[in-house]
């Protein structure tokens, strides 16, 4: 995923979908691959997740058991900071010895010491930047709807290739589709007819139970 400047975010195309709750997990693959969010640069992981996105401290401390920042396992969410272009990945507890070793601050953390995240000295918060967030396993189910509802940025080509590789059943979950203010037929997303020029898409998905709202 290329690094995107914050200025580009303002020019992103707005795509709003209303999606049936029972097909929400169809977006799990997209959320695993990663999406972009805005955050105050050089804020700690805790500040970003709890302060800016409203995730509870308890959830962060107890449920999000395994965290990677730029591919390195994190032990301390209060000292590790997120910058423009950072890649943050969140997971629940993992099985097995390696799961135990990668767990944040766990007993076996020294077994993966050579790849552990070490925070640099620059930690003064700056302006807003885009960073990449990946959600894995139980965390996809539990936090996915929150981020999709509040909106995520995606590279247009990544979203196109995601839509193009979906099986036919996927589209039965789509209850409504708005590009900017215009309603689109589901078919246009499905068949690649929604193509826009903006390199970025700001995607919001409202998940509903039952019929179209």
């Amino acid at each position: 995923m290329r690094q995107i400047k914050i200025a580009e975010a303002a020019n992103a195309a707005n795509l709003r979908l209303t999606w049936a709750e029972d097909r929400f997990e169809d977006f799990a693959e997209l959320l695993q691959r990663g999406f972009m969010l805005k955050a105050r640069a050089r804020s700690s992981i805790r500040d970003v997740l709890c302060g800016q996105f409203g995730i509870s401290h308890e959830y962060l401390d107890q449920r999000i058991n395994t965290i990677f920042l730029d591919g390195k396992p994190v032990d301390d969410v209060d000292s590790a900071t997120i910058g423009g272009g950072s890649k943050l990945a969140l997971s629940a507890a993992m099985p097995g010895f390696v799961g135990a070793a990668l767990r944040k601050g766990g007993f076996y953390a020294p077994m993966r010491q050579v790849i552990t995240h070490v925070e640099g000295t620059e930690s003064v918060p700056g302006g807003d930047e885009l960073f990449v967030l990946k959600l894995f396993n139980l965390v996809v189910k539990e936090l996915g709807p929150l981020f999709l509802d509040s909106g995520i940025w995606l590279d247009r080509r990544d979203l196109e290739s995601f839509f193009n590789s979906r099986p036919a059943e996927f589209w039965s979950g789509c209850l409504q589709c708005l590009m900017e203010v215009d309603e689109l037929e589901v078919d246009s997303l499905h068949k690649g007819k929604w193509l826009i020029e903006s390199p970025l898409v700001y995607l919001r998905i409202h998940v509903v139970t039952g019929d179209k709202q």
Partner: protein
Amino acid sequence: MDNILRIIMGPEGGPKATVIPVGEYAGIGGRALTSAIVSKEVPPLCHPLGADNKLVFAPGLLSGTAAAMSGRLSVGCKSPLTGGIKEANSGGQASQTLARLGYAAIVLEGAPKDDNIYKIFINKDGVEINLDNSLKMLGNYAVVEKMKAEYGDKIACISIGPAGEMKMCAASVACTDMELRPTRHAGRGGVGAVMGAKGVKVIVLDDSGMKMRSPKDPDKFREANKNWVDGLKKHPVTGEGLPAYGTNVLTNILNEAGAYPTKNFSLGQFAGSSKISGETEAATETTRGGSATHGCHRGCVIQCSGIYMDKNGQYLTKQPEYETVWAHGGNCGIDDLDAIAMLDRLDDDYGLDTIEMGATIGVAMEAGVAKFGDAQAAISLVHEVGKGTPLGRILGNGAAVTGKAFGVERVPVVKNQALPAYDPRGVQGIGVTYATSTMGADHTAGYAVTANILKVGGYVNPLTPEGQVELSRNLQIATAAVDATGMCLFIAFAVLDQPETFQALLDMLNAFYGLNLTGDDVTALGKSILKNERNFNTKAGFTPAHDRLPEFFKKELLPPHNVTFKVRDEDLDTVFNW
């Protein structure tokens, strides 16, 4: 489980079965029993495929009881792949059934003087051994269908496919699952080749008319089992993560950590990981009418397995687990889940270890036999193995043989056994276990993350190399002990985090056998198993030089972290100093 069934395959007039009391082997089960019998009765320098080797099948100490998760079967012998002692274990129904039939072990000894193959039927009335050459070169699925037609569907089967009959070093022993499909395998070390060398195609177990084994103190046992199940259900890994996604939940995590061996261990990250992750696999299974939560034997409460359907909604295979998805997937640059599921099905049918086969195909791809990422070529290579073509014979003997045949330097094996799905340059502690395990490179050898509860060996400073060695030692001791109980190793996380769940396991053993075991006794059991195994390997010619990772791990930087394996040889040599 008071008796051992010994079947001698070589005498004049055909195989002979004798049932003898368990005697000097009383009070041990699973890996403790297989390793005790092999180290005492098998000459360490014998040919693994010769008459002097023995193949031992042993249920765990709690198999055949009401204890949840107690259905692992240990299969032990001298390994044709490593040349050392081997215990490979499997889920499925066989362990529970064998234990309820009252056998602490079946031991296959000697070797037939011709190339006939036999089937063995065991029920409450005794043992029948029949020559049946109609089974020759059948896949495991076809063998089980024939046994079902002959003996009904209340059976469990232990069988080999063509790879075992061809005595290939990657051959596995298959055990049937709850649906009577041959999907659970004692995969590692070529145990299937030893069964082939004994001329046994299938062992059919029928426990009709037998009761569940009963504990000495039923009330205490019931209570301990309840605490045990509660502990497993309330933990997020055993109660939520594994049931929802299976072990393949690790794909995204290892990939993110840069420790996911990709394209024959040349990279630490795979671009196609999200297409083959546990999350994607579970969603695919559910959408196609399969299942993402399923047990491999009755009494499993974690249910890390599943049922994988093809695109038309027809059964293809059980849920390929993490090691399989990695070996045939990222390790070969393949990101097609359906192709990986097909490779899993073929491995199960031909009777092959999925880790060894995936690693072997990775080496073959590096040699240019096929291109990385070519799923159809990988499927064709497994068919070559199943048919026993000259190329297939090379591949079926594993990554080390294939590396030699094609002149490849980067061959990921220890003691000739292929490394599993964790690059030791990223997680150095597992490299210590891969290098020093008595079994060859084996992730399960140091899986039981209970060592901090058992506190084996006192204080550990994990930041030093000695600390990493100490942790690996403790893990190996704890794992050997868990392997003796017949418990699935996936209990490890609940036991790590919840001391009361570990206590519940001890309480079950104590209530069942009328014992007073403590954590120290468990440690002593683990040590004694490892001691037996180390002694055997030493007599078989193993030296400290065998306890090493391949040289490339020390020399080649692994992207993206650009790290090498740094634990020193002299530290590795201290793993078994206790």
